[in-house]
């Protein structure tokens, strides 16, 4: 797999756009999945995932061919997601109670973005709840949890993607797990 990708990268380096299309085909689901779990909505996820691929294309010269391509690509995608999360930090929280109501949160005020007809399979309530709980995690824990448990990457790869010491990655994963445990323990 990596060998095929590297051949394609070399073709892209020579300027062949079609070869890049094949790279997109190979990684699109992974990158989209990563963005979706980080951002919590399809529209933004598609936006960011596309942006990640376009950036990869534009900056392909800076990719070191001796490293894993996926690591490099995930790093671009992860950084874009983190930027997006920081930028759109809301000044109110959706799970805060609406004033004057009892137990009614802002979630009930917005149409669910995931509940499109074609998303029937995911719109099961459980999936939504879990996604919502992941989205509630602070971004530094959310990133490692998503990379570890949704993209199923090794701790070493995560440390490379985030350019962070292995020890820091572990600590964040532990804290992220604890935070999620508290949120999900009643399920």
């Amino acid at each position: 797999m990596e060998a095929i990708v590297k051949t394609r990268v070399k073709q892209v380096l020579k300027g062949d756009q079609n070869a890049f299309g094949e790279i997109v085909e190979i990684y699109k689901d992974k990158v989209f999945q990563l963005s979706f779990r980080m951002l919590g909505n399809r529209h933004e996820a598609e936006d960011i995932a596309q942006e990640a691929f376009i950036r990869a294309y534009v900056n392909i010269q800076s990719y070191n061919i001796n490293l894993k391509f996926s690591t490099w690509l995930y790093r671009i995608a992860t950084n874009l997601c983190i930027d997006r999360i920081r930028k759109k930090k809301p000044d109110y929280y959706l799970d805060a109670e609406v004033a004057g109501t009892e137990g009614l949160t802002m979630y009930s005020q917005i149409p669910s973005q995931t509940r499109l007809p074609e998303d029937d399979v995911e719109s099961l309530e459980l999936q939504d709840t879990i996604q919502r709980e992941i989205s509630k995690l602070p971004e530094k824990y959310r990133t490692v949890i998503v990379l570890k448990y949704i993209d199923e990457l090794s701790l070493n790869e995560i440390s490379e993607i985030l350019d962070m010491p292995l020890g820091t990655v572990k600590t964040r994963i532990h804290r992220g797990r604890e935070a999620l445990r508290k949120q999900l323990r009643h399920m």
Partner: protein
Amino acid sequence: MKCPEKWVVYMHEYLDEEISAEHEKELREHIHHCTDCKMHFHQLKKTIALVQSTSHIQAPNNFTANIMANLPKEKRKVGVRRWFMQHPLLTAASLFLVLMAGSLLSTWNQDQQFSVSKQPNLIVQNDTVIVPEGEVVEGDIFVRNGKLKIEGQVEGNVTIINGEQYMASAGKVTGEIKEINEVFEWLWYHIQETGEEIFQVFDEQKVVGKGEDNA
């Protein structure tokens, strides 16, 4: 009863698959009789299972096409080169045609002045070449950018490039008469000529001039 932190640390070591054999043994024994820690451990494992259970979603259908449409335009040089690499035969053919056309057109433009192939008994008046009455011209006649009047007899082919020919009733040509006025005809003529020359190399005796009567 509050258990020491180390049990939680062991649990995470376990979940990272980095726990040593003795830590794992200790943890198992501890969990066996500490319900609080057992629950904590169970909740952690359940959390992971839940996170992993979020169904694997796929990128939208037109995802790749959208990206390809949004990529910065590749340098045209590359596109042209790829086209050439994919169609080597067409490339060779088009290159040949371009060069051929170029060289032929340049000869066409060079030959704007009046010229005629020399034969002893031809009469030239301004840009008109006359084959006089009663005379017999032996050999082919070429006239460029001029008119040709045939009143006598020509024992051979007549070729007029960019001109006209008038045949008097008594005139006679034993070979072929060709009039070439357009660039494309000129090109075609040239190609035919080249072809004929090549055949002549192979079979010299065959080309003697066809006996055709164009009275």
